[in-house]
């Protein structure tokens, strides 16, 4: 860059210099042809850059709003009105239950005629926004952990995403090393729970999705629950109860399925992990399916939201990872055929298959990706054919030998 004006030329171009600096630059430019030309060239660079078009895959923008919407729904939290209503409902509940408790417990001799008056008095207090105090006073309502002021939503999401990534990583790397006992009895993922409950709230599904069968470290606090008044305490309790019920079902399923396969699968995993550490060459053909089967199996007990997010967060850096991710996407689409994200999963399976081929150069991966793409294009419900066709156009005309 010119020694004359240096970085000031760029800032001058943007009108970001102070008045006195600007005047000095203008004065210099009137006398220095080199700097004047450089300024002109910098402007030309900007102008040319603005002409660079950006093109997304065909059909991408048609599908994006719907994809964002479905993710928003999955993640949506109770809004203030809902919280207020839940608070009021809890307060009324408390107003009814507490007098009964008082009558039968502390004041057994209270005449029935006085009970309504006591209830009214309690109700008045409840409606006077003293719910948090009651949350502690009434043992029927479990205390929510005194959550520290929650992080900003953006930060909170980062935490969730981290957890999702941990989930997915666990599904790939260590799920079976940890063995099903830890898996079944492990702590619950806050994000997975919340996704599951949020989806249930929003979509009114009768059948709760399977909760996380395994999870990040137990220390993962339920900090993602907002610091909440009594309404959310009740709601949180309800969530806990439902999730525990669902977890019991999953434990049964795991006892039957995972533990049955545990022994021989672990035998298969050990050599896989060892060879991953040492071998730089593409993995033998049987490894990826095994890893894929494992992660798919473990992932299948996740709620669809957590599972989908976990898969999305994965960035395959090796052939084995790409194959495992491809298989996991296929498994998601297979396990959740009615999920609105199944279509995306099918497309991602194809794309990840191509990535596997690019990473490993194995014609079998390419052939499989082509076959999946052909099946996708031929299927009735496929919504992103243009995206898949665009992907196919990036591939060689015939499979490489």
């Amino acid at each position, binding site marked *: 860059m010119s020694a004359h004006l240096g970085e000031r030329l760029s800032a001058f*171009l943007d009108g*970001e210099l102070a008045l006195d600096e600007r005047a000095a630059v203008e004065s210099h430019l009137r006398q220095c042809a080199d700097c004047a030309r450089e300024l002109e060239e910098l402007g030309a660079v900007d102008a040319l850059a603005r002409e*660079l078009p950006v*093109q997304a*895959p065909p059909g991408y923008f048609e599908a994006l709003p719907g994809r964002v919407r479905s*993710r928003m729904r999955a993640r949506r939290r109770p809004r203030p009105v809902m919280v207020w209503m839940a608070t009021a409902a809890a307060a009324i509940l408390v107003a009814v239950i507490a007098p009964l408790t008082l009558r039968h417990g502390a004041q057994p001799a209270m005449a029935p005629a006085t009970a309504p008056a006591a209830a009214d008095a309690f109700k008045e207090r409840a409606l006077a926004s003293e719910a948090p105090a009651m949350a502690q006073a009434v043992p029927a309502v479990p205390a929510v952990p005194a959550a520290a002021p929650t992080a900003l939503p953006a930060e909170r*999401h980062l935490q969730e995403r981290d957890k999702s990534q941990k989930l997915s990583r666990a599904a790939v790397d260590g799920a079976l090393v940890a063995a099903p006992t830890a898996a079944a009895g492990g702590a619950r993922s806050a994000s997975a729970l919340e996704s599951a409950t949020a989806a249930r709230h929003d979509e009114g599904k009768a059948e709760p999705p399977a909760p996380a069968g395994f999870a990040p470290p137990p220390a993962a606090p339920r900090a993602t629950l907002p610091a909440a008044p009594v309404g959310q305490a009740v709601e949180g309790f309800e969530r806990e109860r439902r999730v525990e019920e669902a977890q019991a079902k999953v434990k049964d399923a795991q006892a039957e399925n995972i533990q049955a396969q545990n022994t021989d699968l672990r035998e298969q995993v050990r050599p896989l992990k060892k060879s991953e550490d040492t071998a730089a060459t593409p993995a033998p053909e049987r490894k990826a399916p095994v890893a894929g089967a494992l992660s798919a199996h473990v992932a299948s007990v996740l709620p669809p939201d957590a599972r989908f997010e976990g898969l999305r967060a994965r960035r395959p850096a090796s052939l084995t990872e790409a194959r495992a991710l491809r298989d996991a996407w296929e498994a998601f689409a297979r396990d959740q055929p009615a999920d609105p994200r199944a279509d995306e999963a099918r497309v991602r399976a194809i794309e990840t298959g191509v990535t596997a081929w690019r990473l490993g150069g194995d014609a079998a991966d390419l052939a499989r990706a082509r076959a999946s793409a052909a099946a996708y294009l031929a299927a009735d419900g496929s919504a992103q054919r243009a995206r898949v066709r665009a992907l196919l156009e990036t591939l060689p005309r015939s499979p490489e030998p």
Partner: protein
Amino acid sequence: MDAPSRADPSRDQAGGAPGRAAPDAADATEAALLAQAQGGNLFAFEEIVKRYQRRVYATAVRIVHRHDVADDVVQEAFLRAHQALGRFDLARPFGPWICRIAANLAVNHVRSPVSREEGLPEAHAETASAAPSPLVGVLDAEARAQLARAMEALSADQRAVFVLRVFDELSYKEIAESLEISIGTVMSRLARARERLRVALAPYLAAPRVRGAEGGDR
């Protein structure tokens, strides 16, 4: 800023729920839509997504250079914007705000250890636009290709600053806030980025001057 996707010039209805979306959503002012979205109306927010998705995608993909990553960034940016919408001042324009969110996410991704910049697949790469004359078109096409390569060669930090300034037209202060750096750093990174691009384009820069093309009159 120009809408980035020339492949999708028309405003589409796909991906939404036409039957349920408010029929006048497309005509509503941005502030009205945002106010509805703040009240929890998902369809109002979806209309906002439709209006800004191309711009946000362009910001993201120019920084990360991969469609799949840009796709993640775009979705995440809209989700975060939706989550933070309650704090958004309706008197301010939404575009710069969402682009700042996207740029921050994009840069964080590129800085992250898992990031591996591999470049866009061929089919997603830049395509030439209509040129005013065949001769100029050849020069411009070459220059564009050279510029695209030079932009890829910038560091992610330099690229982010350049994208936010030149494409999204944010002030240095806004860029500094978005990327959590000082204004002085914005200034120096931008100057270095421009200088590298200028050097890369040097063989072509004489032509615009001859043609009388103007670029430095901003």
